[in-house]
C-alpha cells in the first residue's frame, strides 16, 4: 500500500566542478516504485552523500550503492582500494563495510569457454569422445565382471539378485499385460477395417499374431522396461553414488561393478524373454477379443494364428528381447555409475538412462530388421 507520505526512490548526481554529490531521497523498498536516476554517474567515487530526504530503505539501497561502487571500480583508471563511506548513516555504512570486506573474486565465477561457435563445437566433440570412452570402459568392465562370475569370483548378495528379479519380473506383469492387450486390440481394429475391404477379415489373426511376436510384443515390453526398470537402476545406483555408498563398498573390498551391475543385468536378461512371451500371448488374446466382436469365433481365430505364427517367427522376438535386456540394464547402470554427487545429478542420470535405453532399443531393432531382411526370415 502506498501511503501519502511514501515517495518514489530517487538518486541524483550533482556535479559541481570536480566534486560529485550523490543525493538519495524517497522510500527505497523492493516492493515500492522503481528507482529514478538523474544525472550521470561519475567515473570516480563520489565523496559526498546527501541523505536528508531519505525516508526508509531496505536492502535495495545498499545493493544500489554496491553495484555503483563495482562499476566505478571497473572503469576507474586509478583503481582505488575502497570507496569513501563517510557521511552515510552508521547502519548503512556497517552493511556496506561488511559487503566490501572480502574483495570480489574474479576467478570464482565459472569460466565459460564455449561462447564462440567453434568453442562450443569443440567442447561438444570432446564430450562425445568422452562418452564413447565411458561406453567402452563400461563394456570392458561388464565383460571382466562376467568372467569373474563364470570363474566364481564375482561377489554380490543373492538377496539383491532375487529382489531385482522380482522387481523387473513379477512386478512388471500388470503394466506389460495392459499395454500388450491394448496393442493387440488396436492392431486388430486397424487390420479389420482394411482387410474387410477385401473380404479377408479372417487374416486379422495372421496380422496380429505376426506383428506381436516379431515386433510389437518385444518392442513395447522393452520400452516399458526402459521407463520402469532402467530408470529405477539409474536412480538407485546414482543415489548410492551421491551418498558415498559406492565408496563404502570399495573400501570394504567389494567390487561395485560385480555388486551392483551384475545382479541387475542378469535379472533383466533372464526376465526380458519371459516378459516378451507373456506380452505376445496377451496381445494375441487382445486381437481375439476384437475378432469375436467382428464375427471370428475364438476357435477359428486361434487356428488361424497357429497357422501364421511358426516357431521361427515366435523365436525372433525372444532373441531380440535378450539384446534389449542387456541394453536397458547397461544404460541404467552406466548412467547411475556416472552420476554426479548431488540429488539433481541423480535426476539427470535417470533421464539420460531412459533416453539412452529407448534409443538403443530402437537402433538394435532396426539392425535386426535389416539382418532378418537379408537372411529372408
Amino acid at each position, binding site marked *: 500500500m502506498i501511503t501519502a507520505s511514501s515517495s518514489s526512490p530517487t538518486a541524483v548526481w550533482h556535479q559541481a566542478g570536480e566534486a560529485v554529490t550523490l543525493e538519495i531521497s524517497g522510500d527505497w523498498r523492493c516492493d515500492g516504485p522503481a528507482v529514478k536516476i538523474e544525472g550521470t554517474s561519475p567515473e570516480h567515487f563520489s565523496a559526498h552523500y546527501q541523505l536528508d530526504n531519505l525516508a526508509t530503505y531496505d536492502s535495495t539501497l545498499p545493493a544500489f550503492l554496491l553495484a555503483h561502487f563495482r562499476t566505478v571500480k571497473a572503469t576507474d583508471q586509478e583503481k582505488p582500494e575502497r570507496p569513501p563511506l563517510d557521511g552515510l548513516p552508521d547502519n548503512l555504512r556497517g552493511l556496506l563495510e561488511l559487503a566490501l570486506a572480502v574483495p570480489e573474486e574474479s576467478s570464482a565465477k565459472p569460466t565459460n569457454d564455449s561462447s564462440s561457435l567453434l568453442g562450443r563445437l569443440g567442447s561438444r566433440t570432446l564430450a562425445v569422445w568422452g562418452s564413447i570412452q565411458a561406453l567402452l570402459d563400461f563394456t570392458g568392465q561388464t565383460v571382466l565382471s562376467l568372467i569373474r562370475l563364470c570363474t566364481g569370483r564375482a561377489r554380490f548378495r543373492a538377496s539383491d539378485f532375487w529382489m531385482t528379479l522380482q522387481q523387473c519380473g513379477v512386478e512388471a506383469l500388470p503394466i506389460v499385460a495392459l499395454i500388450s492387450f491394448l496393442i493387440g486390440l488396436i492392431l486388430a481394429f486397424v487390420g479389420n477395417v482394411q482387410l474387410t475391404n477385401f473380404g479377408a477379415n479372417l487374416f486379422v489373426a495372421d496380422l496380429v499374431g505376426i506383428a506381436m511376436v516379431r515386433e510389437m510384443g518385444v518392442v513395447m515390453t522393452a520400452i516399458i522396461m526402459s521407463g520402469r526398470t532402467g530408470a529405477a537402476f539409474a536412480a538407485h545406483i546414482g543415489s548410492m553414488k551421491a551418498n558415498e555408498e559406492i*565408496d563404502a563398498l570399495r573400501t570394504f573390498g567389494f567390487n561395485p561393478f560385480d555388486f551392483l551391475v551384475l545382479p541387475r543385468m542378469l535379472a533383466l536378461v533372464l526376465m526380458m524373454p519371459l516378459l516378451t512371451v507373456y506380452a505376445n500371448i496377451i496381445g494375441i488374446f487382445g486381437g481375439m477379443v476384437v475378432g469375436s466382436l467382428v464375427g471370428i469365433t475364438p476357435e477359428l481365430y486361434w487356428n488361424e494364428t497357429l497357422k501364421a505364427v511358426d516357431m521361427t517367427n515366435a523365436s525372433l522376438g525372444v532373441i531380440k528381447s535378450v539384446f534389449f535386456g542387456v541394453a536397458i540394464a547397461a544404460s541404467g547402470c552406466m548412467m547411475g555409475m556416472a552420476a554426479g554427487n548431488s540429488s539433481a545429478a541423480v535426476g539427470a542420470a535417470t533421464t539420460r538412462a531412459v533416453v539412452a535405453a529407448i534409443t538403443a532399443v530402437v537402433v538394435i531393432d532396426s539392425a535386426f530388421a535389416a539382418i532378418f531382411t537379408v537372411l529372408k526370415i
Partner: protein
Amino acid sequence: MAAKITIRELTMAYGDLVVMHDLNFEIQEQDIFVIMGGSGCGKSTLLRHLIGLQEPAKGSILYGDEDFTATDPDERGAFMKRFGVMYQSGALWSSLTLGENISMPLEEAGKISAATVRDLVAYKLSLVGLSGYEDYYPSQISGGMKKRAGIARALALDPDILFLDEPGAGLDPLSSRRLDDLILGLRDSQGSTVVIVTHELASIFGIASTALFLDTATKTQGAIGNPNELRDHSDNPAVRLFLNRGDTPAPLQ
C-alpha cells in the same frame, strides 16, 4: 621403526586444477591425527587419497614400508580391508538394516558362523551406544546415530587404521563430545591409529595428538604439530588465526 603412514611429495589434482601440492608428513602408530583447514581446502580429498579412492597426481603414500600407490588392484583390495572408514554422510547402505550394514563385510571376510556374526554385530553396535538398533534402516535414525552407526561399520573388521571424515559436523555439542570420547576410547583400548578430517576446534584441541593444517592460500601444508602448541607458537599466521577463530593471534616470542 617406520611411521604408520608416510606421505611423500604428494600432489593432488582434479585434471589440471591442483588442489594441494608437495605434502610431506608422517602419521605415527596410535596417533590421533587431525587434518584441518578451511572449507573446500582439500581435506576430504586428502582422505580419499589416503584410502585409495583417488590416485595422486604425483608422489606416494606408504603404509609402513609398503608403497600403497604402487599396488595393483588385487593387493589394494587386501590393503583396504585394514582400513575402517566413516564417510561424511555416514554412507550406510540404505537398502540394508544397521545390522546388515555391519554383517555384510563380516560375512564377506570369511566363514564366520551366523551366531558369531550376530554377536559381533551386537557388540559393534553397543560400542557406539546403539545396542538394539540392528533392525532399523538408516532412514529411520537421526543424523548423529547415522554417524555412530557409520563408525560401528568402520569397526566391523577390527581395522588397523580408522579414517573419519568430519565426524562431528552437524552434531550438537553433547553428541559431538560423546563421539570424541568414543574415538579416544577406541584408540586407547584397541590401539588403532585414527585419522580425522575436521574443522571443529573443540574436537581438535580435545583429542588430537598431531594436527596438520592445509593452507588454502599456498595450496600446501601450513604447519604440523600438537594443536595446542600450534595455536600459540606456530610461525604460520594462518594457522594461528585458524586455531584462534580469527582473533588476533598472540605475538610470537
